[in-house]
């Protein structure tokens, strides 16, 4: 019997959604209920967790702070990565292979021990407790990721496309924006989402480099886990809410990732 192709993604999505359902249902329960009984859906349905988040400034400011530095970082990372990836993809220059690999090495160190030096560095340049600090610090791992992924996609585009465009009279800028970028749209979509995602979930540096003014949602959530014991309901509600911005981002780039753009004819 031939299994229909859609069965595979359907089963996978169901597998993904089960724990998420669990998370969402926890967000509508009290911590007592979560730890006390097993229930498929909230026995004592409560909005208290969400109310706390929407009314307590530390919580909702946390969201805004996080969105700020994540947004800055994503735009910054993708913008500088595009020309660099183009250079790696089309040109040979002194040290290019080593530079390329070096970029990736910046993702190879466990962050724990580096937190203190980072704190010292950003304090020294006077950026402590600003969203810019986190946005810049996250460049450490997001830019290499962006460069590597974009380079991978750019290498799939034959150089003849560039040359045909020049013969047709395009300047480099026009060629890059109107022809090249649509061709690697899938890569750009994926990179934007990944930069957003990795910056959004990064906890250690975000906590280390901020204290009050720029405190991100990450810090508030870890506080929940340690100080007041385990406020699971609150944590679950916060967790549920953190999914939403990222869902927007991937929705935004969905046409880039799927076969929205065909290989453009020059």
């Amino acid at each position, binding site marked *: 019997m031939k299994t229909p192709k859609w069965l595979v993604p359907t089963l996978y*999505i169901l597998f993904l959604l089960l724990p998420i359902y669990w998370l969402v249902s926890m967000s509508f329960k009290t911590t007592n209920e979560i730890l006390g009984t097993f229930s498929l859906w909230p026995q004592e349905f409560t909005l208290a967790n969400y109310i706390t988040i929407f009314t307590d400034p530390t919580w909702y400011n946390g969201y805004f702070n996080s969105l700020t530095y994540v947004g800055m970082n994503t735009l910054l990372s993708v913008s500088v990565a595009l020309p660099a990836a183009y250079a790696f993809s*089309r040109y*040979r220059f002194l040290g290019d292979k080593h530079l390329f690999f070096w970029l990736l090495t910046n993702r190879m160190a466990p962050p724990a*021990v580096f937190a203190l030096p980072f704190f010292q560095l950003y304090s020294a340049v006077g950026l402590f407790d600003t969203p810019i600090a986190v946005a810049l610090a996250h460049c450490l791992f997001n830019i290499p990721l962006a460069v*590597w992924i974009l380079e991978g996609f750019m290498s799939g585009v034959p150089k003849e496309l560039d040359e045909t465009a020049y013969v047709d009279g395009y300047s480099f800028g026009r060629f890059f924006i109107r022809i090249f970028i649509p061709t690697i749209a899938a890569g750009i979509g994926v990179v934007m989402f990944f930069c957003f995602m990795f910056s959004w979930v990064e906890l250690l540096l975000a906590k280390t480099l901020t204290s009050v003014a720029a405190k991100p949602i990450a810090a508030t959530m870890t506080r929940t886990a340690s100080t007041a014991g385990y406020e699971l309901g609150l944590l679950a509600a916060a967790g549920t809410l953190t999914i939403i911005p*990222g869902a927007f981002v991937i929705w935004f780039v969905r046409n880039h*990732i799927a076969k929205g753009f065909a290989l453009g004819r020059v």
Partner: protein
Amino acid sequence: MIDKTVNQRAWFLVLPVVVLVAFNALIPLMTVVNYSVQETFGNNVFFFEGVKWFEQILNSERFHASLLRQLSFTGIILLIEIPLGVAIALSMPKKGPWVSVCLVLMALPLLIPWNVVGAMWNIFALPDIGLLGRMINGMGFDYNFTQQPLAAWFTTVLMDVWHWTSLVVLLAYAGLSSIPDAYYQAARIDGASAWSVFRFIQLPKMKRVLTIAVLLRFMDSFMIYTEPFVLTGGGPGNTTTFLSIDLVKIALGQFDLGPAAAMSLIYFLIILVLSWIFYTLMMRNEEQ
């Protein structure tokens, strides 16, 4: 393959990237190297100790044990997540309304902060109050991840697969989308079977993207800390104490940053070497 032209001016295109990354990389790195070769007894007084910490770490049984655990864990999840991710990407629709739905739903696990992932799976997998725990016990297995090493490993692996496979799917899917239609058309005209299309068109064209997926998953799983720590705390006992968890224990437990710094550098070098091997192996056909 792209025939690259030599052009030293390309450095200007790369310069912003280098500046931004190096700013964040070099100074902290130097600081850590500094710590790794010193010992302090407090009051900001440091004594140069050379390679003492490195030797200590490399010779410790504890280090060997967590390294082994780490290698096993990473090996297992790579063997599951890469093929699974590719298979799912291949079976996803290429266009139409369901594509957007699929992409959004698949992205959800990636967006949850890692401590929440650990916490939700912790409850989810508990044998008495968690859905998964009850399901498995209900099927007749004796399952309690807080007490049984095997169950703990199973849960940790399952959690990681749940959390990260979508990364592979997204990368693979984007890679597949970039293959121009003409290749599929030519294959149809040539009378190629679905397997041939996969073997001769899809897989080769996805190679770079898959390399990135493998490297990313390798590095991130090798450094994994928050999720398993919140899920099992490294236990029961130390059966799920992976390398990062061990490292933090050492860093917190000691007054001195020396051993932790040294271990970080060793850690880094291991990942570096293994990544380089992976990278070279996967890209070996490119240079001719």
